[in-house]
C-alpha cells in the first residue's frame, strides 16, 4: 500500500552523518498533499529492469542472433551428417574385398573357387566368402551384354566376395601372395583405390563443410558483436544516468550483461530449436519416404538425416557460445563506455 507521509521527520543538525536517515526536505504543507487512496493501491516496487527490455534495437538483436544461430546450427548439422555418411561409405566398402579368378586353360574353375575360399577363410578376421554364381554374374553383365546370356560359353572371371569382421584387419598382402601361389589366375582386390578415393572425397567434403561452418561462425560472431554494439548505443542514456547517480562500472556492466545474455540465449535457443526441428522433420520425411527413388537417392548421398548425439551436443555448444559472445561483447562495450565516462583524466575537451 502506498504510504502517505503523515508528518515530516525531524530536521537533523547540519553535521549529522549524511546517508544514514532521511532528512526532511521541505514543510509538507508547501506542496499539495495527495489524498489518501481508497481501496487497493498498486504495490510500490523497483522491479523493472534497469536496462529497458522492449526496445526495437533489442528485439532486432534477438532476431539477428536467432537467424545466425539457425544458420550456424544448420551448417554444423550438415557437416556432421556429411562426416557420418562419408564414414559409413568408407566402412561399408572396406568391410569387403573381392577375389577374382580369371579363366585359364586347364584350370578347373570350381576347384579354383573352393581353393580360393579355403585360403581366404584361413585368414583371421574373415567372416565369410561368397562366390558369385552364374546367374548373379549374368545379372551383373546384363547392362552390357543383354539378357538371355549363357554365361558358361563366355570366359567370364569368377568373383568371390570376402566379408571381413568389423574392426578386423586381415593381412591382405599374405592373402594375395597365397592366392597367387595356389590359385593360378587369381587376384585380390581390397578396394584400396576406392577407399583412398572415398577417403579423399569425404575428407574434402568435411573440410569444405568445416570451412563453411567456420565462415558462418565468424559471420555470426561479427554480426552479434555489431548488433550488440548497435543495441548498446541506444542505451547510452541509461548508462550515463546510472553513472551520474553513482553506479560503479561493475554494477552497470552486470545489468547490461545479464540483459543481453538473456537476449542472446533467447535468440540462440530459437535459432537452434528451428534448426533442430528442421533436421527432425527431414529425418521423419526420409524415414516415411523409404522405397521411393528420391528418398533412396538422398539416403545414398546423405544417409538418414540423423544428427546423432554428437550433432545435438554440437548445436548446444554453438548456442551457448553465441549467447556467451553476446554477453561478452556487451560487457566489453559497456566497460569501454563507462570507462570513457569515468576517465576524468582523459575527458577534457
Amino acid at each position, binding site marked *: 500500500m502506498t504510504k502517505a507521509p503523515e508528518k515530516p521527520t525531524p530536521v537533523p543538525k547540519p553535521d*549529522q552523518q*549524511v546517508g544514514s536517515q532521511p532528512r526532511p*526536505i521541505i514543510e509538507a504543507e508547501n*506542496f499539495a498533499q495527495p489524498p489518501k487512496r481508497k481501496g487497493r493501491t498498486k504495490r510500490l516496487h*523497483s522491479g523493472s529492469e534497469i536496462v*529497458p527490455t522492449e526496445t526495437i534495437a533489442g528485439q532486432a538483436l534477438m532476431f539477428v542472433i536467432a537467424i545466425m544461430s539457425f544458420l550456424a546450427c544448420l551448417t554444423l548439422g550438415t557437416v556432421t551428417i556429411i562426416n557420418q555418411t562419408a564414414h559409413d561409405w568408407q566402412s561399408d566398402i572396406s568391410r569387403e574385398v573381392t577375389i577374382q579368378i580369371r579363366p585359364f586353360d586347364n584350370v578347373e574353375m570350381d576347384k579354383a573357387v573352393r581353393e580360393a575360399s579355403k585360403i581366404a577363410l584361413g585368414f583371421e578376421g574373415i567372416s565369410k566368402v561368397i562366390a558369385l554364381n552364374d546367374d548373379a554374374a549374368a545379372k551383373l553383365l546384363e547392362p552390357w551384354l543383354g539378357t538371355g546370356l549363357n554365361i558358361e560359353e563366355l570366359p567370364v572371371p569368377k568373383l568371390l566376395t570376402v566379408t571381413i569382421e568389423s574392426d578386423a584387419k586381415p593381412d591382405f598382402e599374405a592373402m594375395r601372395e597365397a592366392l597367387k601361389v595356389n590359385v593360378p589366375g587369381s587376384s585380390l582386390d581390397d578396394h584400396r583405390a576406392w577407399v583412398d578415393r572415398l577417403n579423399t572425397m569425404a575428407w574434402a567434403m568435411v573440410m569444405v563443410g568445416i570451412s563453411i561452418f567456420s565462415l558462418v561462425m565468424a559471420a555470426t560472431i561479427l554480426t552479434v558483436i555489431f548488433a550488440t554494439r548497435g543495441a548498446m548505443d541506444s542505451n547510452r542514456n541509461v548508462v550515463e*544516468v546510472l553513472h551520474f547517480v*553513482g*553506479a560503479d562500472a561493475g554494477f552497470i556492466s552486470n545489468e547490461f550483461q545479464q540483459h543481453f545474455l538473456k537476449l542472446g540465449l533467447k535468440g540462440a535457443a530459437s535459432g537452434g530449436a528451428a534448426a533442430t526441428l528442421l533436421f527432425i522433420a527431414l529425418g521423419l520425411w526420409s524415414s516415411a519416404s523409404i522405397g521411393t527413388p528420391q528418398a533412396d537417392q538422398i539416403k545414398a548421398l546423405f544417409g538418414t538425416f540423423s544428427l546423432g548425439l554428437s550433432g545435438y551436443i554440437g548445436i548446444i555448444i554453438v548456442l551457448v557460445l553465441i549467447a556467451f559472445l553476446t554477453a561478452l561483447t556487451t560487457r566489453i562495450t559497456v566497460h569501454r563506455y563507462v570507462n570513457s565516462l*569515468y576517465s576524468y583524466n582523459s575527458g577534457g575537451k
Partner: protein
Amino acid sequence: MIKFENVGLRYGLGPEVLSDLTFQIKPNSMQFLTGPSGAGKTSLLRLMLMSLRPTRGLVTVFGKDAASITPEQLPAIRRKIGVVFQDFRLLDHLTTYENVALPLRVRGSSESSYRSDVTDLLGWVGLGERMHVLPPVLSGGEKQRVAIARALIDQPDILLADEPTGNVDPPLARRLMRLFLELHRSGTAVILATHDLGLMDQFNARRLVLNQGRLQIYD
C-alpha cells in the same frame, strides 16, 4: 568541499570558455550560479561534477585533487553529489517511484529500507499521486520535481542543480526554491545555476556570476 584554483577550460582548439576561476564551495553553503545564456554555467557545473577535465588549473573535490581520482574512486565521490540536469535525464521506462529510488538501488540498498523514504519525498514534492506514472506522460514541471527528488533522495553533501526552476511557473519555482533552502539548512551545500534574476532577488544567498568566461563572486 569543492575548490577551484586558476581553472581554465577550452573546448578543442577554441577560445577559453572559462578563465582563471578561483573559488571555493564550503560545506552547508548556498549559492546561485548565474550569468547570461552561454556564459559557461553548465560547463562549470560539469567541471564540479568531474564530467569535464579543466585544460588548466586545479580542481579539488572533497579534499582530493580531481586529476588524481581514479575510476574506482569516482562512484563513491559521485554518490556525495546530487545533480539535477537541465534536461532531467529521467529513465523513460522506469516509473516516477523507480526513477527516484534509482540512486539507492544502484547502491545495493534493499527496497524495504528505502520505500518509505521515496514515497515520503515524492509526497513532499507533490508527486504522491504520480508514483506509478512513466516520465513521458509527466509535465515539464513534474519531470523537474522527479529529477530534484532523485538528486535529493540519498541526501547528498553537495547539490548541483542546472536551471532547476526553468520549466515551472513562478509560484512553483518559489516552492522549489524553498525546498532547496530547506535542504541547505539541513546541511547540504547547494549550487543552483539560474539566470532568473527575479527569483534570486527573493533569496539571500551568495552569487557566483559568470560573464565572458570570468567569475565574479558576490558574498
